[in-house]
């Protein structure tokens, strides 16, 4: 797996972070926000490595024992916090891992290992929809102890928007710490959805907004025959790149084509089939469900760009005439509302809504929006 240097991934942001470290002005809290797959987590880990590097070379050397331990995500100054499932009975003051089954613990350790090996790996523990308050309280237990070795303690909170789920108790517990930050400690909150974080947390973080990854990074990552197509479709989202890269160009275009046929044609039998198949997929293969809706979103984006005369990677032989015809048939189509309807479906999955009903609503909404209603 190709590993990128931080300066390759996000040169402007990395330059800023380097200056912060060089000037000895490391803050107590940072927020790395931006679109999915833009290298936020990778840069957060690199930042922790840089701060704790034992070589005094103005960047992380990657070979000192400290860098090596951070490479393995096994450093004493590095704490990783990410969403965990609710299992067993444990109180908010317990160890956050208490009550988790052996299977989940294995999944967590495997995920951390995979993250260490692959900087774009996304830690996703099954049924983990929230960051438990015990994970934040656990920080407090050790945050006020003097630092064990040289360097600075770095606490990385991935999917930080999931701090604010429910009544936001976890976010408030973190806020309490951020208000009186422990000495020699930096928090790095990483999120795709900055707007879901409490304003009081945002105001206590130095915010770094990540742009999508540069095309050259994605091209360097890919060596598949569909590299150009995937790069054009993914718009700098490395998570999407990895999924798209697994499919051949023809396969990809056929999947998109059949999906749009299923949805756009007003046919009761087609729709019943769609609702049944996708409801099953939502419970059995949620990742595939999200991916297919992402493809649908890409198709509508490409159709919109065709209408306004912008180029798009999906304007291929097979799809372009269909899009032209589509735009001619539906001149009043509201692309923005359709985009929102697709986002709502993927959100409904995360919120555990009744999927057959959600999908039926989605189909009728798309039909209405195609007519501009």
């Amino acid at each position: 797996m190709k590993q990128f240097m931080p300066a390759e991934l996000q040169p402007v942001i990395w330059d800023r972070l380097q200056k912060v470290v060089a000037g000895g002005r490391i803050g107590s809290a940072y927020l790395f926000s931006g679109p999915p797959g833009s290298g936020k987590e990778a840069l957060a880990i690199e930042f922790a490595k840089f701060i704790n590097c034992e070589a005094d070379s103005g960047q992380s050397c990657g070979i000192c024992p400290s860098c090596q331990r951070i490479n393995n995500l096994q450093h004493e100054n590095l704490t990783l916090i990410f969403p965990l499932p609710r299992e067993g009975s444990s109180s908010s003051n317990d160890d956050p891992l208490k009550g988790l089954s052996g299977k989940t613990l294995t999944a967590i350790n495997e995920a951390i290992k995979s993250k260490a090996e692959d900087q774009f790996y996304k830690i996703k523990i099954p049924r983990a929809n929230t960051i438990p308050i015990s994970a934040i309280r656990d920080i407090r237990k050790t945050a006020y102890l003097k630092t064990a070795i040289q360097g600075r303690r770095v606490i990385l909170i991935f999917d930080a928007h999931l701090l604010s789920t429910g009544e936001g108790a976890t976010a408030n517990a973190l806020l309490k710490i951020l208000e009186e930050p422990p000495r020699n400690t930096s928090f790095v909150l990483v999120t795709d959805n900055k707007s879901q974080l409490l304003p009081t947390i945002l105001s206590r973080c130095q915010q770094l907004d990540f742009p999508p990854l540069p095309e050259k990074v994605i091209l360097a990552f890919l060596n598949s025959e569909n590299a150009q197509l995937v790069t054009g479709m993914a718009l700098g989202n490395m998570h999407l790149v990895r999924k798209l890269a697994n499919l051949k160009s023809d396969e990809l275009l056929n999947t998109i084509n059949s999906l749009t046929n299923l949805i756009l044609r007003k046919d009761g039998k087609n729709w019943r089939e769609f609702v049944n198949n996708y409801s099953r997929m939502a419970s059995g293969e949620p990742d595939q469900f999200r991916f297919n809706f992402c493809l649908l979103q890409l198709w509508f984006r490409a159709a919109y760009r065709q209408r306004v005369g912008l180029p798009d990677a999906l304007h291929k032989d097979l799809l372009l005439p269909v899009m032209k015809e589509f735009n001619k048939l539906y001149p009043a189509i509201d692309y923005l509302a359709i985009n929102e309807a697709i986002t709502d479906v993927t959100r409904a999955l995360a919120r555990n809504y009744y999927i057959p009903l959600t999908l039926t609503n989605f189909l009728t909404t798309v039909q209405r929006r195609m007519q501009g209603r």
Partner: protein
Amino acid sequence: MKISTSKSELQSALQKLSKATPARSTLPILNSVLFVADNEGVLLRATDLEITIITPLEASLEETGSAAIPLHTLLEITNELPDTRISLTVDAQNRVKLNTDFGVYDLMGKPAEEFPAIPDVDGENSLTMDTSVIRDIIENTSFAVSKDELKPALTGVLFQFGSDKLTAVATDGHRLVRYIRSDYQQENYNGDIIVPRKFLGLVGNFLGEAELINLDVGDKHLTVKIGRNKIITRLIDERFPDYESVIPRDNEKQLLVDREIILGAVRRVSIFSNRSTHQVALRIIDGKATITTEDPEKASSAQENLEAEYSGDDLVIGYNANYLKDILSHLKANKITIKLKTAISAALFYPEEQIENSDLTMLLMPIRLND
């Protein structure tokens, strides 16, 4: 690395180290014990990042080296083996092989470099302490340490090292213990440190038969050497509150009572107290002391008379029975003196006679009684 040792030696070392090994962690390396075999011997190290334990292993060394080996697997197989010699070999790929008379066991280790570095224990001041001193401090103070992580300074015991005395203080905001040893004198270190409760509990378990312990007080760490074992803890990086200002000096009313009698009375009466407030009252009226409780929710009440000597005006004061029991059970004296002022001010508990060269003061805040 290749070493050979006996089952009992390895088992005893691993059992000690298991106390600093977290049961679950997102740092799997912490579930391992680091073996370092060099020409000076074999040292084993385990840590949960707060506490580090280093212990030597009596072993014959055949080849130097180091590796991190999963502690629980190693301990489990060692526990299951009868008394025998165990030969432990680690190859360049960190594959661990245990050879015994009964069989061969393989498991995967990790490179030593992945194991957390040994804490940086610089700027240390070396002190020696009698085991009885540290044991008394742990017994007298640890129960009053706060469990509330929102008050980090109170989650440890304050040690104030002076040239002519050592003061240990613990409080959780409801009760406070101050223990002074005036027979502890040293010239090497004057200063204050806050030591986490967990560490003191661990040290208590390690004390055993040792007569003396060595303390190395650093800027960030406290190292305790007991025999050949070394336990290192990170210190709490907070300022302890000014406890002297909360110890009242004008509590004129004085109750002298047999400790077992009052403790027994509180234990029995508190059974009938409210399950959420645990409220009991000490009533001293016309020189007669009683412990009472009332729970309107369950319509239950209890009362016991105490044989006690009292000097002062009448007083009715409420306490959380659990805190009161804690204080009374940790005052190791036949008779205790309770100094009181009003129904809403702190009470002081002392042994009637202090042990020579020591001064133990326990403070308990009252709770306001419902009229």
